[in-house]
């Protein structure tokens, strides 16, 4: 495939999956995930020559998005740890981290986003991949390199947890 062919494939993938990938990245990171989704599509573009069609394009894109979000989360944790150390040196006192976005809101979207951040990373990825019928259990298992049974178990567990949190917060 020529370079123009790869660009056409990228355009088709963006048109088909941009909203799903932006939603996934936002849910994974707890804030606007558009910049990260931007990088996800560029990574996919660079990896297009190696795509052999073993899975669907959607599954492949979700797998790339999940790996990239993990990397962003790792970098963020490291940066925050360094900042905290720096702050301790500068101010000589421990301070609580700032409240995450959505802490003081009743907006259901923000609450869901906040509760998603309370889930362990694999469960969060599974919930975001599975909700709105984006991927089947089998496709998620393929993307995350785990068994279908593990996906089903974690999906059910995560739903129970989120349901409890929403009930407590909103009284639904």
């Amino acid at each position, binding site marked *: *495939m*020529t*370079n123009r062919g790869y*660009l056409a494939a*990228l*355009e088709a993938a*963006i*048109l088909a999956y*941009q*909203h799903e*990938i*932006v*939603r996934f990245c*936002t*849910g994974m990171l707890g804030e606007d*995930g*558009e910049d990260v*989704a*931007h990088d996800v*599509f*560029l990574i996919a*573009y*660079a990896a297009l*020559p190696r795509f052999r069609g073993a899975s669907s394009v959607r599954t492949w894109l979700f797998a790339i998005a999940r790996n990239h979000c993990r990397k962003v989360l790792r970098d963020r944790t490291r940066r925050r740890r360094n900042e905290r150390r720096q702050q301790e040196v500068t101010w000589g006192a421990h301070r609580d981290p700032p409240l995450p976005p959505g802490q003081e809101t009743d907006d*259901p*979207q923000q*609450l*869901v*986003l906040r509760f998603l951040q*309370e*889930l*362990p990373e694999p469960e969060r990825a599974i*919930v975001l991949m599975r*909700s*709105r019928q984006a991927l089947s259990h089998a496709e998620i298992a393929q993307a995350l390199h785990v068994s279908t049974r593990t996906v089903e178990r974690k999906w*059910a*567990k*995560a*739903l*129970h*947890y*989120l*349901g*409890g*949190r*929403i*009930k*407590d917060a909103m009284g*639904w």
Partner: protein
Amino acid sequence: MQWDGNNGNGDTQRAYDALEAFEVRASPTFLSDVMQAAVEQPRRRSWFNRLLLAPHPWAPAALCVVVVLTLGSLLGLNYIDWPFVGKTPFAPIAAVTDERSGVIMETELTTPLVAFTAGLPMYYALHRGFDRAVAQPF
């Protein structure tokens, strides 16, 4: 509430509905932004590909020879005394000669095997490298 995954059965539908309602959409300029970045960014190549796509067309072949010769030398396969040439670091078929008489006592296929083993993946990579260079000239 801490994450333990045991929060009662009736919560599932509630969470499902909330997740269905959770919607984030890409901005209208998302497509054009990504496409522009894709056009502008040079395609990433692995160090192996960059090495194989070196400016001189014979560079990969030279590398292949170097690898084979190095492996041959490292494995001590330089003990054939060729007429007019003397000892060479690479022999098509290595032979063990008797030190006093110079008679070839036995031959072995180690050198060709080493050359083949090292050369085959190199040839494959080389072939693919050139194939890519021709198919996708960036």
